[in-house]
């Protein structure tokens, strides 16, 4: 099985803070991987480096064999990102936002079909003519994620996709994310353990910029001797910071 992402000693230092510290991971193709970690653990910074939004201080990272520093153009074509804050054009309608993003990534004749697919995949039909600024936070987030997948990326980064969503909307978004899994590899960060439990094939726990543990839920349970991801996570996090 091919690895979509391989990092080697990937490091990001800010002035007095090492946000990501010597990260060496491999993420297999076609999987949904959850990046867990307390606030400031370095999840967003990792995603930013992998999507060419931030230059690594040291180390290397490859997406489908393309180096993020040397071949950013190739990487950018393969990667879709939904940032921690929603990123939509406020005065454009839902449909126009999708058309705009599709226009960046796709050939002209494929735009219309891609927009329809995205609208259906995220149940946006009812809102397609509404300006983005009139959407509620949850729907804006759905739009933001739909915009991330419309360019048909091979790798999708979802940074806290269900932040601020109600229980029902979250469940629905889980189903929608689930539906993307056979089309792309997904790297998702979250603070909701049940979300990682429900969606992730593989879990990485980050502490202070390093990966403290990695594996399937079963493997992590066995490793820590705890039951359920929440207990497992607390155990790893407390051990790691002690």
């Amino acid at each position, binding site marked *: 099985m091919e690895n979509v992402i391989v990092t080697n000693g990937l490091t990001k230092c800010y002035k007095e803070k090492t946000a990501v510290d010597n990260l060496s991971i491999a993420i297999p193709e076609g999987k949904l991987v959850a990046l867990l970690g307390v606030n400031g653990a370095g999840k967003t910074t990792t995603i930013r480096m992998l999507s060419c939004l931030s230059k690594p201080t040291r180390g290397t990272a490859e997406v489908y064999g393309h180096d993020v520093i040397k071949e950013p153009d190739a990487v950018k074509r393969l990667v879709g990102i939904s940032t921690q*804050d929603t990123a*939509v054009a406020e*005065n*454009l309608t839902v449909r126009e936002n999708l058309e705009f993003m599709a226009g*960046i990534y796709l050939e002209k004749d494929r735009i219309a079909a891609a927009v329809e697919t995205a609208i259906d995949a995220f149940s946006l039909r009812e809102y397609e003519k509404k300006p983005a600024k009139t959407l509620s936070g949850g729907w804006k987030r759905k739009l933001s994620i739909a915009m991330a997948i419309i*360019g048909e990326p091979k790798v999708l980064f979802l940074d806290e996709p269900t932040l601020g969503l109600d229980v029902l909307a979250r469940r629905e978004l889980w189903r929608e994310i689930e539906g993307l899994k056979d089309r792309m590899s997904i790297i998702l960060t979250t603070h909701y353990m049940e979300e990682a439990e429900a969606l992730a094939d593989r879990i990485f726990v980050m502490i202070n910029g390093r990966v403290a543990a990695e594996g399937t839920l079963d493997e992590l349970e066995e490793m820590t001797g705890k039951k359920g991801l929440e207990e497992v996570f607390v155990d790893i996090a407390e051990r790691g910071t002690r």
Partner: protein
Amino acid sequence: MTYRALNFTKRNLKEMSRDSLSYIFCVAFPIVMLVIMSIVNSSIPKESGMTIFRIDNLAGGIAVFGQTFVMLFAALNVTKDRSGSFLVRLFASPMKSGDFTAGYILPMLIVAFVQVVISFAAAKVTALVTGTELEIAGLAFAAFAVLPSALMFTSIGFIFGTLFNEKSAPGLCSIIISLGSFLGGIWFDVDRTGGAMEKICRCTPFYYATKVARAAIHLDLGKETFLFPMLIVLGTAAVMTFLACFVFGKRMRADLS
């Protein structure tokens, strides 16, 4: 122009067409200024020989004054995008810095053109009402002749919007608006002032932008009155546009580091 730049241009045009500020700048503002200044003009005694506010001179001045507000608008548009995550998402896409620069500047040129057409239409109406002579051919020619200065002001605004945040960029633009309209000789006749004041005015591109607009309306293509000033405006516009591309590219790389 790449398809991506065109795509981004379309987005910015749509975004602006739904912003009420566009209509204030494009429609309301030039008309209000024309009316006010024409009233001022009507109260200036004929014997004073002061023609700066006479509609044939005023129209050119207002055209350039309007462009200074297009500059402010350009700066606002960029700072607005920079303050949210939307640009971050685009930085992660295959868009190049040239696509961004083109996509921000082109729609502003369209706004500037619409603005000048509306200003000149209002000027023609004012001329008819006041019984002053104002040729349509001159206005039509001037509408195109002021495009280089529109590019100059748009690029300046784009540079401010790229370098500064939404709090400081408008402030800096207002400095240029005040300085530009004053030193550009929109509100007084620089050539009749003389002395140090005239020398200072002649050192700014704004003076030449105003000169071009006024001469074009009079269909005056003289070397001193039109061609020479036009060259200076074109040169400044080219330099500013180049600088805008450079500054945005640099900023983009800094944001990505």
